[in-house]
């Protein structure tokens, strides 16, 4: 973690909204591509897969969002944001247009265990828009200069319906790639859907990735996590081989405001990535 003793850690850096992608049919998921106004801020922003940042809309406030772009992506940072009717900042973000200026501070938190994943088979299990930081991770691992560092990459990703799948162009490319075994599924198919139908835990049971020399990253809604962990344990994944990313309401992002703790750990500072072993210790297996 970098040291910021001289800077004011609460100040967001100005960023321009370069591109907005509406990701789903419900139009409540948008991906924002942000570019730093000041090159020095871009230089200073070095993130790792799994970290998050605080997005700041003047007049509305701030909220924490996982970073959806790979550290190797160009001079921008991407965030996929779900709009909630009761979410002041997420609603304000969804009202933005390209070219507008907002604030960003971070990156914060720990990352997925990228070093431990090297030389291992990597399994990714995800549902819904929690896929965003795993999308960053897949992009990072599949980069030609990184791909040899990992053995097989297997991903299972599900959404409620075909229209709710994120990053559709990339999913298509990954489906066609030999670098990754991509399994996309939907809870409920429509007339045009040619792919798999079934809940993520069910598909996980069908794919049955080997636990040998493997690490699994699982991100999704609490219910999906609950029904995914048990089959993973049954397949032989030990609790310290299973990693997930937790969410809590946050304000400071740097372990001071006292808001996001689970037990003695702060999700912002000690997480957001925790092994299932830690989850068992911290919150008795509750997500």
């Amino acid at each position, binding site marked *: *973690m*970098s*040291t*910021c*003793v001289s800077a*004011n*850690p*609460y*100040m*967001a*850096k*100005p960023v321009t909204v370069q591109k907005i992608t509406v990701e789903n049919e419900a139009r409540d998921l948008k991906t924002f591509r942000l570019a730093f*106004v000041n090159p020095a801020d871009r230089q200073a922003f070095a993130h790792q897969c799994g970290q998050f940042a605080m997005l*700041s*809309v*003047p*007049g*509305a*406030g*701030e*909220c924490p969002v996982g970073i959806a772009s790979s550290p190797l992506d160009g001079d921008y940072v991407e965030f996929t944001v*779900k709009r*909630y009717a*009761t*979410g*002041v*900042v*997420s609603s304000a973000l969804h009202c933005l247009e390209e070219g507008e*200026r907002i*604030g960003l501070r971070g990156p914060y938190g720990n990352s997925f265990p990228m070093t431990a994943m090297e030389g291992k088979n990597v399994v990714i299990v995800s549902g819904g828009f929690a896929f965003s930081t795993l999308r960053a991770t897949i992009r990072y691992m599949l980069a030609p200069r990184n791909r040899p560092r990992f053995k097989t990459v297997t991903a299972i990703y599900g959404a409620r319906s075909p229209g709710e799948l994120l990053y559709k162009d990339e999913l298509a490319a990954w489906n066609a790639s030999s670098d990754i075994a991509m399994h996309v599924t939907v809870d409920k198919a429509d007339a045009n859907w040619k792919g798999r139908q079934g809940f993520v835990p069910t598909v996980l049971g069908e794919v049955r990735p080997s636990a040998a020399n493997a690490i699994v990253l699982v991100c999704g809604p609490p219910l999906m996590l609950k029904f995914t962990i048990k089959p993973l344990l049954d397949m032989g994944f030990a609790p310290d081989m299973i990693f997930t990313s937790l*969410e*809590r*309401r946050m*304000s*400071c992002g*740097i*372990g*001071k*405001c*006292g*808001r996001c*703790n*689970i*037990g*003695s750990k702060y999700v912002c*500072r000690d997480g957001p990535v925790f092994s299932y072993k830690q989850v068992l210790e911290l919150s*008795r297996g509750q997500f």
Partner: protein
Amino acid sequence: MPQASLRKEHFGKFVAAVSKGRKFFGPLECSDGVQLAELSPQDVPAFEYGNFTLPPKRFFLPRSEVIAVHGPGGMAATPPSQERVVLFGVRPCDAMSLTYMDKVFIDETYVDPYYRSRRENTLIITLACRQPAVTCFCASVKGCPAGTAGADIAASDLGDALLLESITDAGHAFLAEHAGLMGKPSTAQLKARDSQHADAGKKMSPVDVEKLPARLQAAFESKTWDDISQRCLGCGVCTFLCPTCHCFGLHDEQVGPVQRRVRAQDACAFPTFTLEASGHNPRTRQGARMRQRVMHKFCYAAENFGELFCVGCGRCIRSCPANLDIRQTLAEVPE
């Protein structure tokens, strides 16, 4: 340890001298009890008080403060306050609480510039307690009625004079600067101080905090929390008055044409504290919120900082509208 004696009849002159370079806050009888208020040389300070109604944390973490104004070029940060302040008459428990807050706001990774600047520019003169209140239990949580943790200068009230003993470099310099108003303490004064300090410590009933972190961990899912919290109104006054409660939120507000970011105190006693945009709330029950507050102080702080974040000031006991008593709550944690 440099020592000096200040006759109370010279206190006004002392205030006048100090006020040339700093704002002087001292104990003053106000409508709502003795408060740490800005003193002028004419004011008659109150030397007899249990403790101030409000803890001194407001001098370092105000209830709310504007930390930035949004402008076309981004956020313009409010510069941290450089105002030089003396706080006279802080009770030892409250001074110790600041050493705990330091661990949160001045850690090795991120320093809170507002807190740090105020800490660096504030000189703390404690006043040892002669008569602890019935709600005091500092001696059970590493404190003592004449403790010096967090003090730059420790003062004792010897009736017609104050005995001042400097602890830190800033305190030494301050005593040297105002030596003209002070004299050398007599042997009798030093003896009086010793017997006063020894007596005060005997006046508190002990609270058992031994093995508390482990007991709390084991009792996480105990029904006790829901039972005790039946009486809790969720008003949050315990967190507002606690000298170590430091939770806050960052909010945007619009005042006229100005959009600004405000940091304001917040509290784990409130259901909205952890309410997420999705509607999910990990702490929906009052019992869960009360457990969080107690465990933060007596379990998580011990794990993170090696200290219990309670100094035994007793404010939460005195001011709880439902008569909840933290000493009793701790005793009710199942073994």
